[in-house]
């Protein structure tokens, strides 16, 4: 009987080492170790064995069973690993092939700039408001201290709809509308479209401005400088010089233009800055008393500053764009660069 067991063991081990697929291994296990398997069959003949030998044969049989089960398990893991390795081999990919993209759109570059500017001023406590693009002459000019025949009207070629209605030439009328409808303190910015009859590489008949207004009891020209310095450096970098230069606007007094040091030549002088080292980005000033009078604010009690800037100009400077018309052509190859 021992010989019989030994030959089952040898046969089985041989069989195990020669199977290569999982199913064959399972068949082999059933053949030798199953309920009706060869090992069980042999043990059924235990009756013929002397009582003294029975425990010995029994333990031999158990050892063989354990050994075979272990061998099958080992073989099983071996086959599994091998199959996996094969599968991996067949599933190889070229990782340098392009990905399948989820398409994501782009905001218009002017929207990006407006968002960036809004963020700075919202952080400084300003409210974002809008005003009408088709305006009354009164709000666009007269209330802003530009009566008919004022020479400042020459600087802004206006699109008229009728004698009284026009396309606003600036976002400044929003100042008047805001002051008419709320009492101080006021801190607003007003982005929007404006229109002038002018069209070339640097002028578009429609463009965008952002107006700002801060009114309060103790607001000073120094505050205007501080606010716009923070703004200019947030937008164009901390190391930009900022310069305030006296200028003239009908609705501010004193008035200033704000320059930043040229980002191309750092102030040495180049084509972009026409060799001055400075680039104008903003107009600003203390609100003119005449404007306060128009909106029934008491000039003796309050003060404030206003500022305005062209969004396209800032976008052109920031992105190095040299033709304003690109913004409105909407060539996707342009839009998708931002």
């Amino acid at each position, binding site marked *: 009987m021992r010989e019989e067991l030994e030959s089952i063991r040898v046969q089985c081990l041989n069989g195990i080492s020669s199977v290569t697929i999982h199913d064959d291994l399972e068949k082999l296990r059933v053949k030798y170790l199953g309920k009706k398997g060869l090992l069980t069959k042999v043990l059924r003949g235990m009756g013929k064995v002397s009582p003294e030998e029975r425990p010995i044969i029994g333990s031999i049989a158990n050892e063989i069973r354990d050994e075979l089960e272990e061998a099958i398990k080992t073989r099983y893991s071996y086959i599994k690993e091998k199959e996996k390795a094969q599968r991996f081999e067949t599933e190889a990919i070229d990782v340098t092939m392009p990905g399948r993209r989820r398409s994501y759109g782009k905001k218009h570059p002017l*929207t990006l700039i407006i968002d960036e500017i809004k963020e700075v001023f919202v952080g400084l406590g300003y*409210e974002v408001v809008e005003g009408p693009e088709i305006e009354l002459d009164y709000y666009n000019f007269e209330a802003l201290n530009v009566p008919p025949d004022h*020479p400042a009207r020459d600087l802004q070629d206006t699109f008229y709809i009728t004698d009284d209605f026009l396309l606003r030439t600036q976002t400044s009328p929003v100042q008047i509308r805001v002051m008419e409808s709320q009492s101080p303190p006021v801190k607003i910015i007003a982005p929007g479209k404006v229109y002038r009859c002018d069209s070339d590489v640097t002028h578009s008949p429609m463009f965008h401005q952002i107006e700002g207004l801060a009114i*309060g009891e103790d607001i*000073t020209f120094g505050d205007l*400088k501080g606010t716009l310095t923070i703004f200019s450096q947030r937008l164009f970098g901390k190391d930009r010089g900022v310069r305030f230069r006296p200028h003239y606007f009908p609705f501010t007094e004193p*008035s200033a233009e704000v320059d930043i040091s040229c980002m191309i030549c750092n102030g040495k002088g180049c084509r972009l800055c026409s060799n001055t080292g400075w680039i104008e980005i903003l107009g600003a000033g203390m609100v003119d008393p005449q404007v306060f009078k128009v909106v029934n604010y008491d000039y003796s009690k309050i003060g404030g500053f206003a500022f305005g800037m062209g969004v396209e100009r800032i976008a052109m400077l920031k992105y190095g764009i040299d033709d304003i018309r690109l913004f409105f052509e909407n060539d996707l190859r342009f839009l998708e660069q931002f």
Partner: protein
Amino acid sequence: MRISVKWLKEYIKFDLSPKELGERLIMTGSEVDEVIEIGEGLDNVVVGRVEEIKAHPNADKLILCSVNVGDESPIQIVCGAPNVYEGAVVAVALPGAKLPGGISIKKAKVRGVESAGMLCSMKELGIGEEHGGIMILSEQMRPGDNLVEALNLRDTILDLEITPNRPDCLSVLGIAREVSAITGNPVQFPTVILKEDQKRIEELTSVEVLDDYLAPRYAARVIKDIKVGPSPAWLQERVRVAGMRPINNIVDITNFVMMEYGQPLHAFDYNKLSENRIVVRRANEGEKILTLDGTERTLSNDMLVIADAEKPVAVGGVMGGADSEVDASTSCILLESANFYAASVRRTARKLGLRTEASARFEKGLPSELVIPAIDRAAQLIRKIAGGKVAKGIYDVWRGAESLKELEVNSNRVNKVLGTNIPKDKMMSILTRLGFEIYDQAECNQTFKVKVPYFRGDVSREADIIEEVARIYGFDKIEATLPRSEGVEVTPSMDLVLQDKVRTILIGCGLDETITYSFINPKAYDLLRLPADDHRRRFIQIGNPLTEEQSVMRTTLIPSLLEVVARNAHRGVEDCHIFEIGATYIPEELPLRELPEERRTLAITLSGHRSEESWDAGKEKVDFFELKGILEVLFEELNVNDYEIVPSKDVIFHPMRQASIIVQGKNIGFIGEMHPDILEGYGLKDRVQALEIELKPLVDFMNRHIAYKGLPRYPAVLRDIAIIADKSILSRRIQELIEKSGGSLIEKVHLFDTYSGAQIPEGKRSLAYSIIYRHKDRTLTDEEINVVHERIMSVLTEELGVEVRK
């Protein structure tokens, strides 16, 4: 305004270099547009005398000049100028010279003959505009001398941008006053001592002003026995550096004084004036005048003319007439120095399309007080340069002087507005240097009074004084601070929040944002094939458009986006998934009587392929449902759930592929596939899906409360239902019926397949829905579900007459 630094220095001393001067002027409010160095590059240009002229052996139009340039022997120069003659003293550019015009001079052979330099014109030297020939110099000049030194040419021109409130700075003396305020040095005004003749002006002429509103002051002098001729070199140079062309001594003097004082002057030929007198009046409607530029102008009644007894001889403040022009034969002139109403000059100049140095000054408002100093200065110069006798007196018609403005200045207030601590004394000294007269000031008092000088019409309030103090004190010296927080509550505008959110969502859907012009071509409405009574044809027209293409305010964004699609397609960019958020302009009434509604509108167009090109993806094109899916995502993200998509009949769309978008019962826009005829009009071959909605009605949803619902704890059961229905029955109707008849056990109904074709009868289609049943408190039994499912099937059969496939 071109300011010669050399000229400026005749009135004020300063130690600043031209560059420093420019910087200081910039920082006090006079922007420097350009700095022009005169004499730059002329180091190798010398005075030469043409000794002998010979013909060029190989060229008819060229000559050989033997030129003495101060060396022992003359040099030979080939020249083509017609005005060279033997004995002419000329400007000679020697080898090595690099002229301002960009020409580099080298020894060279011209048509086979050696040429050792070049005879120069003024233009080539960068000192003048004429190019009639080479520059002929005075015969007194010594050959070999450096030209720049000999002509005393070295100068710097600052081209200043003078703001419209400062006409006083449109003059050399005005700028001198600014420099005085900057440096503290005094201005030396020209001394005018005029020797007059015995004859009184009243015996020679009269001035009658019929409209003293348009002409507050008109002053005239008469000067007899003058000799008209070229101006002396110094005067020509002054006129030239100011950017004008020397004409003759009389005209040059009027221009010189205009540049010097800022007061435009005009000289008439006295003998060409009918009855030798002046009438200042409005033009008669349709009256004509030939102006000095040789153009005949038709005048209207709102324009002011200077006339003689019969006809206009000048357009007041704008330009003189050709008929009374001073020329070589003139022996007696009537010199005009006047003040005209700014707005009227501006209007007239605009109407005539004629802006001159004179009108540019008058239209900004000049003081009447300037009239007399300027006319006397001009008379003095004319007498000196052109000879002649100045008749005694000025014929001066003046509506009357206005008294100088007096202002009280509170130095505390100045400092409060500026955020500074400028001492009162400092303020007063700044103002004094600017020509303000300080009076009524006491040491102990914060306030003082000033008289505003007549030439500062722009200063009338304390705020204007604050500006004067600030700009001369220096903006750069004012400390930058931030406003003390006043605790303004900031509530974001929901309209803007919505717009930002819509942008973010659509970008997430892969669309690019565009911005197009608010004005469009009215033909766009024809391209959209809109009938005459379509509401979108009620558009606002611009009175003075730049072009027809940009002449009406849009009432829909669709044409603008179609143009973008077409432009991109034309440039080879086929896949165009874009949107725009912008206003449409909806008038209540036409012509406008109140502001129109500016309707914030969203438009989307899709064309080309569905997704980005990939190595394994299908090449599917976008269709209606691609766009509708984007709309569904948009509405879901904006919490808009109460909406319907209802088939519509809009002419701009494919008749069978379009719908209205109804939110809370209100039609807010449309979605559809653009009509092929319209696309053809735009030159588009691909289909375009388009959508346009008004954004305002969506704002309310932004605040919708979101309440959390517990996650399901009991399993769901999924059952499908397949039906064959008439094609005319809308999917939405079927879905609603399923939801209604299924009641509360239905969690979700979802269309997962449709089919028409083989095995489905003509005019019908098959639709397959999956229904998810769930009870929130327990597990549903098959029996319960069967009851509901049967009910749904029978309702569909009964109400819609559909066949349920088992």
